[in-house]
Each structure stands twice: as C-alpha cells, then as structure tokens.
C-alpha cells in the first residue's frame, strides 16, 4: 500500500512518513529483542502455570496508564537513564495469583498483587542490568539530573516531561488449563533523562558467568 509520494526537491513528505511509519530508528534491535526475552523469562518464573505470549513491540507518545496497578523502577547506566513500568488490570492479575504465588486461603489480596508485580519488576531490572549495564560503568560522567513526573490518577495520565516515544511491549498470560481469561501486562520504557544508543552494548561476559539459579561458591 502506498503511504506517500515525494519528489527529490522536497523530501519533507518522505521524512514525515518515515517518522510515522518506521518502527525503530531509536531503539537498537538487540535491545528490543533482549528485553522481551528477559521479561518473558521473569514472567514464566512467577506465573508457572501460564504460557506467555509476546506481541510485536511498538512505540507510543501517549501518557496513558493501562489498568489500575502499575510498577515503576528507575533505570540507570552510562548509556541510558529513565524508567520501566509494568501496567496491568488488578482483577485480572489477582485471578492468577492463587495458583501461582499464594495459597488458596489467603488468595485475592492486593498485597499479593503488589508483591508479584514488584518481584517481576525487580527481576526484569536485575536481568537488564546483568545483560546491558557493564560491571565497570563510569557513572561519574552521567549528570544526575531529574525532572518531575506528573501523575493524574483521575485521568490515568503520567508524564515524564519528555516527548520521546516510549518503547512498549505487551505480554499475555494464558493459564494452561484455559479456565481463566487471558491477562495482558503492558511494559513501557521511557529514557527521558539520558539516551545514548551509540554507547549501547550487550555484556560479552554474561554467557561465561554462572547460569542464573546456580550457586557460585566463593
């Protein structure tokens, strides 16, 4: 399907169409693929009776919060600074918790939901650091600026003060028994404080480290 026509003397239309149509001129493909891999592994660990579907990542410039509950953690390295969020519908995730993270007698507790979402966030950020933040990061070169984050609960609105597009992923938890409705979890990255993709690299030493879950005796 044709999206636009342009002439060499006037490339403005082409530029605007490329900006609107090409998914990723900002986020390195290795980073996007890696994030979905490590997030999927964390969700599979926490929701063991579920299959995790990962949809094609996408970019947004909106500031809309999905669902009723979300977690947010600061991301700090010498090539990026910002936040990661996990957003979900409270009732949907709660419906999966009795089988996955608690016992039947103490089920459907919002504290359990906070705990599971918090642990997922912690595991994803830990994996991100191990994979993409080098052990000898020179953080002194990073100016530790901060900007206000605006949250409007009534409007489900959150602003990080940046117009940069947010990198988004959608994971769907499907309980294998089929007795529960699929549960979507939205993941967003906003590197509003610092973004230097030319310095992005995956740690070469990760593969030689002790496998996750194994004991590294000193």
């Amino acid at each position, binding site marked *: 399907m044709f999206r636009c026509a342009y002439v060499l003397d006037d490339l403005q239309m082409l530029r605007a169409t490329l900006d609107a149509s090409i998914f990723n001129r900002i986020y390195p493909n290795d980073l996007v693929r890696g994030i979905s891999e490590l997030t999927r592994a*964390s969700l599979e660990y926490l929701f063991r009776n579920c299959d995790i579907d990962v949809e094609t990542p996408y970019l947004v410039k909106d500031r809309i919060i999905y669902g009723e509950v979300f977690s947010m953690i600061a991301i700090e390295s010498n090539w990026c600074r910002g936040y990661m969020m996990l957003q979900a519908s409270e009732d949907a995730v709660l419906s999966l918790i009795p089988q996955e993270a608690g016992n039947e007698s103490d089920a459907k507790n919002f504290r359990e939901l906070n705990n599971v979402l918090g642990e997922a966030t912690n595991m994803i950020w830990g994996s991100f650091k191990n994979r993409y933040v080098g052990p000898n990061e020179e953080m002194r070169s990073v100016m530790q600026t901060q900007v206000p984050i605006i949250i409007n609960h009534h409007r489900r609105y959150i602003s990080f003060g940046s117009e940069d597009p947010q990198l988004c992923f959608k994971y769907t938890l499907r309980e294998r028994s089929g007795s529960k409705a699929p549960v979507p979890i939205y993941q967003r990255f906003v590197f509003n404080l610092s973004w230097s993709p030319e310095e992005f690299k995956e740690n070469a030493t990760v593969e030689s480290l002790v496998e996750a*879950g194994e004991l590294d005796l000193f």
Partner: protein
Amino acid sequence: MAQILVVDDSSTVRNEVCDFLKANGLAVASAVDGKDGLDKLKSDSAIKLVISDVNMPNMDGLTMAEKIRSDLKNTTIDIIMLTTENSPAMKDRGKAAGIKGWIVKPFNGAAVIGSVKKLVS
C-alpha cells in the same frame, strides 16, 4: 530450631524457597528484611546457613551480612546471597563480609540443594 534462615522482602520468593527447602527435609525460618534477619539470628542459635536477598527495605542483605560478622560476632554461620544483582563490585563486598556463595535469581532449587545440604550438615 531452624537450620536455615531465608531472608527476602518478596513473599513470593520467600515462600518458594522455604517450601522447597522444607520439602527437602530442612528446618527453615524466614525474615522479611536484613533487620528482621538479625533479630531472628539472635533468637535462634541453631541456624547454620542464611540465604538472603540483597535489595531489601530497612536493611539490605550485604549490610546484614556485615553486621552478622561485626555486631553479632558470628564468624561461623554460612551466608549465601540470592539476588538479581550480579555485579563484581557487590560480590567483592560480599566476599569481604565472608559470604560463602552467590545465586542469581530466579531460584533453581534442584541446582543448589546438594550444596545447601552440605553447608548445613
């Protein structure tokens, strides 16, 4: 009288590790952060091994390990960190506190149970 103290602010991880160790015949106690962990150690002298998270509120796991050596003056108890952290700097701090080992989450009980049983035997 527990053999192992599991310290983690996440009830999900804490319950999973405790349930796995109990299913393997070990006596387990738990604590929700480093401060709680120190209190539990003071009240139960039978504990031989601490399995602890690093990032926790009130008191982190590495500070707890250092205080086990300095404040409780316990140099014999074994300590293993179970954490998402994997930085050499943190491991070096752990080694300086006499930590025995390091496990990167997610917890894989089958991979570590043999070593854990040796440490508490």
